[in-house]
């Protein structure tokens, strides 16, 4: 295996050298990297070129190589035609150079992965060592219910196989291990980190690691419980430009970390913040105190949850009616994801990540909630008033 890899690298180097005769370096690297599935053809050209230049036939072959490159560019333009018409060729280029990490693959994250693989990101790395079981199948279309296929395979491995098929231009891979033990440098490789099905402690920890890096890593958490879903976004200090009446306006948004956001005293929040925000914090807090796995609550936990609600409401001087029993019950028993809500939350998250990578469009700050019960998809800004934009 290492031998083969080295061989391939040599061919790539040769290809790069040849390409540099025609285009500048960033472009050459980009082409080379995007043509990886075509390496066999490509290296053949590179080799031919070498032979040809030796014998002085260079011009014809150079022309042939140019055409190869052109074909690749054309293929991409054809594949991404409809979306380039939405966000532009520039954004598409940025997307194709971006690297995404996801952790915790249930239905919602599966939807998200599908969306960004189709959009044509550079690479997607999956982390989830859980073994595939019946429950994992319920809302996740990346797992085909063929027992023989995934015996002993982890969720990440099975989903990786399916995702690769969606778009040959995107590298999808698996990273094994416990994400909380990964060092800060691991996260440096990525532009976007999305985590799901995590404990409160893990969310805080990974968010902190992303924030320690000198480069800006966009951090998202996403969770669906029953007919409800929540997205949290941390883009740190995010600058982007938007067009308004033919003019480009520079905008800047200052995001709090997850820990900072959820520590904002509830009474400091604007009135009519979604009840879902408070309810999710109660459930999250309950799981944290109990040490139970995220999303594995039972209706029997209701008394404990109600007790925690009382405590939190007292500390935050919030009326308990702001977190209705019925809502908490729905969240408690909604341990299985609801596929339509996965599609909706996974779609919104996909759009947000595309916005953050491409720098186009207003990103949401900093929570998004959807409840199929009332059908509203709401943005809430949960930050200290002075950290606003």
């Amino acid at each position, binding site marked *: 295996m290492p031998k083969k890899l080295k061989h391939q690298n040599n061919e790539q180097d040769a290809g790069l050298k040849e390409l540099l005769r025609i285009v500048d370096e960033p472009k050459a690297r980009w082409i080379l990297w995007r043509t990886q599935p075509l390496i066999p053809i490509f290296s053949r050209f590179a080799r031919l070129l070498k032979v040809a230049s030796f014998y002085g036939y260079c011009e014809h072959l150079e022309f042939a190589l140019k055409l190869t490159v052109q074909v690749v560019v054309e293929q991409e333009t054809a594949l991404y035609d409809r*979306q380039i018409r939405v966000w*532009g060729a520039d954004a598409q280029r940025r997307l194709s150079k971006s690297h995404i990490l996801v952790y915790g693959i249930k*239905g919602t994250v599966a939807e998200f992965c599908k969306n960004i693989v189709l959009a044509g990101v550079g690479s997607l790395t999956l982390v989830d060592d859980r073994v595939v079981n019946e429950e994992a199948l319920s809302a996740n279309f990346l797992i085909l219910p063929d027992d023989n296929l995934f015996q002993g395979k982890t969720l990440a491995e099975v989903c990786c196989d399916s995702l690769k098929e969606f778009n040959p231009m995107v590298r999808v891979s698996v990273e094994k291990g416990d994400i909380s033990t990964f060092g800060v440098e691991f996260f440096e490789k990525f532009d976007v980190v999305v985590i799901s099905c995590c404990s409160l402690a893990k969310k805080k920890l990974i968010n902190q690691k992303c924030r320690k890096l000198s480069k800006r890593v966009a951090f998202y958490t996403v969770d669906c419980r029953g007919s409800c879903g929540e997205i949290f976004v941390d883009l740190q200090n995010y600058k982007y430009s938007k067009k308004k009446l033919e003019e480009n306006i520079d905008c800047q948004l200052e995001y709090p970390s997850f820990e900072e956001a959820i520590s904002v005293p509830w009474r400091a929040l604007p009135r009519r913040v979604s009840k879902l925000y408070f309810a999710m914090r109660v459930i999250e807090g309950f799981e944290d105190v109990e040490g139970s796995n995220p999303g594995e609550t039972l209706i029997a936990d209701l008394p404990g949850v109600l007790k925690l609600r009382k405590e939190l409401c007292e500390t935050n001087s919030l009326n308990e009616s702001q977190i209705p029993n019925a809502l908490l019950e729905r969240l408690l028993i909604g341990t299985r994801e609801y596929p339509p809500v996965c599609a909706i939350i*996974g779609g*919104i998250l996909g759009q947000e990540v595309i916005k953050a990578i491409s720098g186009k469009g207003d990103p949401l700050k900093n929570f998004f909630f959807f409840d199929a019960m009332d059908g509203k*998809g709401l943005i809430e800004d949960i930050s200290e008033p002075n950290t606003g934009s």
Partner: protein
Amino acid sequence: MASQEQLSAIKGAKVLMVGAGGIGCELLKTLALSGFQDIHIIDMDTIEVSNLNRQFLFRQSHVGQSKAKVARDAVLRVRPNISITPYHANVKESRFNVDFFKEFDVVLNGLDNLDARRHVNRLCLAADVPLVESGTTGFLGQVTVHLKGKTECYECQPKPAPKTYPVCTITSTPSKFVHCIVWAKDLLFAKLFGDKNLENDLNVHSNDAANSSEHSDVFEYRKDEDIEEYGRRIYDHVFGHNIEVALSNEETWKNRNKPRPIYSKDVLPEKLSEQNGNMEKGCVTDDVSAMASLGLKNPQDVWSLGENSRVFLEALRLFFLKREKEIGNLTFDKDDQLAVEFVTAAANIRASSFGIPLHSLFEAKGIAGNIVHAVATTNAIIAGLIVIEAIKVLIKDSNNYRMTYCLEHPSRKMLLMPVEPYEPNKSCYVCSETPLSLEVNTHRSKLRDFVEKIVKAKLGMNFPLIMQGASILYEVGEDLEEDMVAIYAANLEKALSELPSPVTSGTVLTVEDLQQEFSRNINIKHREEFDEEKEPDGMLLSGWVEPPVDKDKNKPIGNGESTSNALPAEESLEAKKDVTIQEISEVTEIATGTKRKLSEVSKGTTPDHSGLSDETRNHNQLEKLDVDDEDDELMISDDWESLTKKKRL
């Protein structure tokens, strides 16, 4: 998570999906995951490369195959034990009649064109089956629920008419790039490569009749003529001579910038042919392409006037050299590379003449082909919302039906905005009994005009039957007697007043579509004169509700042209009764630099294509840009503005 009631409703339901494209793929997947067991799916399309970026059930290897069938196979891999029945067919086929529709508990639309949507709407009304309708454009989308007698039908609000341009704007006074595209596509391209028998207004601006007849055969290719010479002759005629003629009419240019005549010798060297040709051999694809043979690579580059002129001549040359057999039968097709190159070049040269900014081939193709902007995420979200509404329909939770808008920019913190559905429109010509009347010049208008412009275009009928009392004037069907077909064909060419049973002022015509089980009476009123610019049809149907003229205080902000740039904002859940309007932003603002607004995009993409359209499409009328057949995601063109004036349920 779903309640027991929901689960058992889902398990027992038989649903019909119409469309297996962008929304359809997402919808089929979400339905299967949600536990639906019996799904039928109709789609006439086959898979294309540009579908693959979002129609995730399809792979490169499926290109050319039936969408409905491939989608079925892909989803059965995930849920092997459910039943999915695919139909690779047009939903307008007669086998999909009212009885067929009656078998279903709910119909879910993921369609790409107004025609098919109207057709499904009528069948759902006739069969009394609830319909969940949807559409997306870029980041925008919407889902609506239609239940006969309970909520409005899909056609209760008139759809914005397709964007039309006055003939003289196209032929003489273009001011936008789209005018140049329409000119290049519907006039010049049609004149050179299309059916020679069709009327063509290319020279219409010439106010000197003798002059225009003198040039009547300027477009004729003479045998043995040098092809480059021919190309230059056309070039000089349309970009030089015709502009000079137009300039001679000084009245026209009093308040306008004068165009500049362009002659090929001014922008190109004397002899070109030596420069072309040598790269042709290296062409990798089989497609004939002027870009390739000229060494132009990036379709997103904006070419100079010189480059456009070369592409123009080269494309023309290639048509005559490589595709001579097709000349005379060609119609513009956005997937025809050479045609797109020709139209782009011609439009750009004309734009240059009129001081209009030039555009890239990529942009020109989008405008000429009316390509709808589409991304996977919006389709996924919309599909999720469709399933949520479908489940409410199944458990008859009618108080909680919502129409939901998916927005690009939040409105009152909402990206997904639910709105209570509206009552049926009492004057809707489809779902109510509203009487219709038609003003028409009964001596001049032929039955054909009535069939094309009213029965098909306005009433959306596919298999019409027209009766005057007990006598049948016209009928379309599969099993008609030959002699009847001949009589109907003859009737088509007769003026209304000269028909076997004359149609005059006071006549009541009955128009029926048996497949749609849809029938209407039309009172005829004779009228002598019609304003050519304002009433280009030469007839006026009333009782049919035109998009309302805005008299409301709730005027939408900005964008005066738009009829669909406003949204009703949801307040009812906040216990308020009034409705306000929020501005909806430009769709393409972030996109390719085309500055078209949502409303224009959607207007342009509105009706008429598929099935019958080939016969009915009238290329002379400059009525509309062609609609993209393959793209499944259509407009949010529903007239949001008018929504604000209606009562809630």
